[in-house]
Every structure is written in C-alpha cells, then in structure tokens.
C-alpha cells in the first residue's frame, strides 16, 4: 500500500474526525474573541494534544489555527476589534463596510476567500514540501547550522519592528534553551545545582506562560466595559460573493501567493502576510482612493493571504525543522515531544503521516465553510461572552495545562516565570516570539554547530567548505553586517548633525 492510501485510511478514523471537529469549534470561539489569538489557541491546545497520538495532535492544531484565523475577521467587522492580529490589517475597512450596511457581503467574502486562500497555501505546501525535502536530504550539519541561523535572522528581521530587541529576545530564548544537560558533552549547564533544571526548561509551560499568561496580564487591566456588537442582522452571506470573485480574481491569486511566501519565510506569519498583501493591493489598485472607506478590494487580498500563510508556514517547519511562524514553532516542539524529528527524513520515514497532515489541512478548509457560516450566524452570542469570566477560566486552563506535561508543580513555576518575562518584554517593546523560536531551535542549532566544529576541527573555514553551506553562510553574514552597519550609521549622522 502506498503512503497516500495509507494516509487516507489514517484520516478515516472516527476519533481523528471528532478531534478535528472539536478543535475546529474551539478555534472558532478563541479566534472570534478579541484578545485571544490563534497562537494562544495553539498554546492552550498543546497540553491536550500531549495525550493524543501524533496525527491527532497535529490535526487538532492545523484545524484550530485555520479556524481561528478566519474567525478573527468576524469581530473585526462587527466590533472594530480584530479577533486575532491576523485580521488587524483590514479591521477598519471591514467595520466601515459593515457600517455602510454591507456586513453580509463582508463576512461572506471573508469566509469564502479564507477558505480559498487556505487551499492555495495547502496546495503549495503539498507540492513544494516533498520536493524541498528531496533537495535537503543531502544537507549536513554545516548547512543546517547556517539554515537555522538564516531562519532565525529572518524571523527577527521580518517579524519585529526593532531588530536589536528582536535579537536580544532570540538570544534570551537560546540561552534559556542552554539550561540543563548540554547536547554535545552531556554536561549540566546553568542548573545552579538543582535537579529540577537538569532536564532543561520545559518548552510547553514556558510557551503557555509567554503566550497566554502574559496576554492575560496585559488584558486584565482593561476588562471593564463590554464591547457593543454592531446592530445589524446577518442575512444571506453568499449573495454578492460571486460578483466579487469575478471582479477581484487577480487580487485573490496575488494575495494567496504573497501569503504563502510570507508564511514560508521564517518568523513571519499570517498577520504580516495580511498587512503586506493589503499594502500591495492598495498600491496596484485602479481605485486606491476607495481604500479606507469600506472597500472590498483590499479585504479580498488580505483575507486570502492570512489563511494561505498558515499552509506556507508549515513548509520550512516540516522540511527543515525551522518554523515559519510562532504557531509552527509550537508544532515543532510538539513533533520533538512525539519523537518525530522534523526534517527531510520525515518525508521518507513518515511519508504517510505527512500526507495525512496534508489531508487534514484540506478537510479543515472544507469544514471552514459550514462551521464559519454557523459561527457568523451565532456571532452575537460568541461575542457577548464576558471577558471578566474568561480570564480566570483561561488562567486555570494554563495552570493545569502546564502541570499536565510533567506532572510537577515546577512546570507551573516555569509558566509563571515565562508569563512575567513575556509581559515585561512586550511592555518594553521586546517581541516574545523569538524567545520561543530560540527555545525550540536552540538544541538543534547548538548540536549542528558543535558537530560542525568538531568535524572542521575548530576551524571556521570548514563552515564554508560546501557550496550550499557557503552560500547560506554568506547570506547570513551579509545580513548581520548590514544590520550592524545600519544601527551604527544613524548614530554617526545624528552625532555629526
């Protein structure tokens, strides 16, 4: 039996399909509630997936995130509050459309183009990932070292407004990753003589702390005052969508492709994809003056882009083990936990699993149509869940979720530390995602680095002895030098002025 038919049989499992359905509902609710992001949905879901077989765990994450990114569009139109950051780029535009009485059309377009955009992302993932894996199979530790460096550098560059703080955050994450037994020599580092730190800082409690607890700390000060849902009945959603498709087909393809590519770039995810494709849409529009007045054109681009980015982000995650966004960073952590090391070998040893994940992507996008429709119809109820009740309940889920991973209270301590650290960092303009990237990739980066050092007998020239490694290395170093130069140059010109 070939891997595809094997995968098909794996997907046709009632437990799996039920998991997909439940995580879809979970993703929609979390995505639709402003302040709860798709990343947070994943963070809260991971402790549950810990107890599932690998495919079920991955399926739950795939489905929940796809739904959350779409569902974020609903409160954008109804409350002028993006449900997830991925909808922020066109929140005003959506809200203005709703105010003009086009709420139905707006939500219909958001739903249909989210589904279609998702399909484009998945299609590119299915076609390109196995090809790239074949190419990557010849990579040695030198290539992986530079690839990880380049990926992390891109992550810091694209995803953060302030690269210096982004790098600082990345180094903090890598440093936290160093705690515990070191991967090359087995020497216990930074444990301060305690047994609890020997195994290192557990990734899931840290992530729950940084992505969920810090978010609670940030939002708990503004809990009073409930948002008012726009008073408009939702009618037929799909009425004008066909017309929009005919008029803006080009925008859809452009947005989806931009989304996939940006998703595939390490570190940049759905939110950045939406911002960029919205800007591109405006730049090349025949009617740029209509943007910002409740015009559908930019929404077509960006709502397709943020959903296609999800599929794109899985490409580097599965092929190289380098996450495309913070969600896939969590996915990589989950893969390691399940003893599935992401990388090209996955496509050989576990090809059926990969194909099954691809199939779940497709199922999730098909499921989005009816569930999204239902969510829009029920939006008034979802959006009226009071946030002051949610915060304590989410906190309880965080505590128990962290505990469940190691069955030890130390995990809750790590969660608390991660929460405070994440909160203080975000308050001071330090991005949090690079910390998690560093924590997830730290061991892989160091292992490849140390292996390369030993192979090259401590000589740096060895890192450039293979053509692909040399190219990747040169690219990375050019970016680093350019960054340093760009940081120091304004200082000089400001000083001379």
């Amino acid at each position, binding site marked *: 039996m070939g891997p595809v038919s094997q995968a098909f049989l794996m997907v046709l499992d009632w437990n799996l399909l039920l998991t997909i359905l439940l995580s879809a509902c979970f993703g929609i609710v979390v995505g639709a509630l402003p302040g709860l992001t798709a990343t947070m949905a994943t963070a809260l879901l991971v402790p549950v997936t810990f107890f599932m077989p690998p495919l079920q765990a991955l399926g739950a994450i795939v489905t929940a995130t796809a739904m959350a990114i779409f569902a974020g569009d609903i409160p954008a139109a109804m409350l002028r509050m993006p449900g997830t950051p991925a909808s922020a780029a066109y929140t005003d535009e959506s809200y203005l459309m709703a105010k003009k009485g086009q709420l139905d059309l707006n939500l219909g377009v958001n739903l249909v183009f989210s589904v279609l955009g998702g399909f484009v992302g998945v299609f590119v993932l299915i076609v390109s990932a196995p090809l790239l894996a074949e190419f990557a199979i010849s990579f040695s530790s030198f290539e992986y070292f530079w690839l990880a460096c380049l990926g992390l550098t891109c992550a810091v560059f694209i995803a953060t407004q302030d690269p210096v703080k982004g790098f*600082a955050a990345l*180094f903090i994450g890598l440093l936290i990753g160093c705690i515990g037994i070191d991967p090359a*020599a087995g020497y216990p580092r930074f444990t301060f003589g305690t047994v609890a730190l020997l195994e290192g800082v557990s990734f899931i409690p840290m992530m729950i702390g940084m992505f969920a607890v810090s978010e609670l700390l940030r939002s708990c000060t503004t809990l*009073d005052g409930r948002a008012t849902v726009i008073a408009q009945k939702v009618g037929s959603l799909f009425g004008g969508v066909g017309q929009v498709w005919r008029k803006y087909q080009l925008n859809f393809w452009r947005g989806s492709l931009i989304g996939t590519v940006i998703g595939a770039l390490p570190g940049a995810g759905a939110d950045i994809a939406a911002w960029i494709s919205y800007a591109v849409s405006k730049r090349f529009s025949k009617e740029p003056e209509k943007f910002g007045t409740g015009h559908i054109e930019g929404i077509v681009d960006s709502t397709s882009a943020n959903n296609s980015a999800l599929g794109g982000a899985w490409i580097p995650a599965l092929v190289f083990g380098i996450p495309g966004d913070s969600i896939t960073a969590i996915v990589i952590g989950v893969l390691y936990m399940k003893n599935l090391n992401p990388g090209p070998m996955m496509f050989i040893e576990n090809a059926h699993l990969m194909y099954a994940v691809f199939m779940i992507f497709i199922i999730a996008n098909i499921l989005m149509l009816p569930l999204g429709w239902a969510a829009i119809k029920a939006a008034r109820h979802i959006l009226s869940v009071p946030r002051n009740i949610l*915060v304590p309940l989410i906190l309880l889920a965080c505590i128990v979720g962290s505990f469940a991973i190691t069955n030890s209270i130390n995990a809750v301590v790590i969660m*608390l530390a991660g929460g405070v650290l994440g909160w203080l960092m975000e308050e001071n303009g*330090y991005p949090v995602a690079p910390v998690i990237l560093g924590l997830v990739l730290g061991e892989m980066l160091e292992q490849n680095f*140390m292996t390369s050092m030993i192979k090259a007998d*401590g000589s740096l020239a060895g890192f450039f002895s293979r053509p692909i490694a040399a190219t990747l290395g040169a690219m990375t170093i050019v970016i680093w030098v350019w960054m340093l130069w760009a940081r120091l140059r304004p200082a000089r010109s400001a000083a001379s002025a």
Partner: protein
Amino acid sequence: MRVNDLVSGALLILVAAAMIGYTTTFPPFPGQKFGPSLFPRLLGVGMIICGVILMVRGRRLLAAGGTLATVDDHYRSARGAFSVIAILGAIAFYIAASHALGFVITGFIVVSFLLWWFNVGLARALLIALTAVLAVDWFFGWMFRVPLPLGILPNGPANILMNFIRGR
C-alpha cells in the same frame, strides 16, 4: 512599566556577563580547545552587542528629554495594578498551596477569587468556579489520567464518581 532602553540594555549586559562568568566552570571536550561553554559564550557576546546598541540608543533618548521609566495609564490606576498582582498572586498561591490542599480546593479558591475580583457577583463566581474545577478534574484528572494533586481529598471527584458508577 516601560523602562528606558538604557536600563534594559544594561540588564542584558549584566546577565550576559554573569553567564559568561558561569561558563568558565564548564570543562572542555577532551582533546579540543572548546566545550559546552562555547555556544553560551557566543550567545553572551551577541547579548552584549545588543545591550551596547540599546544603551547608546537609550542615552540618546534620555538626552533628548526622555524619562528613565514610565508607567502606562491603565496600570497607574490602583485597580489596574492590583489586577496584575491578583493574577500573579493567584498563580503563586496555587504553587504554594496545591500540594497541601489539592487541585480541587486550590483551583476553586483561585478561580472564585479572580472572578470576584473582576466584578462577577459572589454567588455566580462560586458557581462558575465550582463547575470549572469539576470540569477540569473530569477532563484532565479522569480522561487523561493526569495525577492532579489530591491534597486533603481521598480521590478526585470525577474518579470518585466514575468508580461509584462502576460499582467499585
């Protein structure tokens, strides 16, 4: 609280320096000039570079009339600041008490206190907290067999109930 980059940059340098100091106690690989200390030291150098750039930038901001630290408006109100403390305190209380009191009781106290603090009526808060704790106990404690701390209870409520149903 927002601090000037001068402060956070200095903090980064301090942490990096302390870490590099710690790495001097690590042994090298046999027969090599480097060992487990190499990678953290490189990270330390990176952190120091970031810290220096941030300090230079912070000093320039300070010279241009910036402040060393500011507190955002929503934390400035007593309630805002105390909400943060309430959440942190609730987690700390859970860490300290859950072993002795058990998950059900500690979780109930934590959730009902926070609900009450965030302006949910007391009766409603107690009811929601009880439902939430029992649901979590059923989901994690019974379904996934997570050994949630029992404390003073003989067994988790969901386990007691399921054992009773099964006639054990």
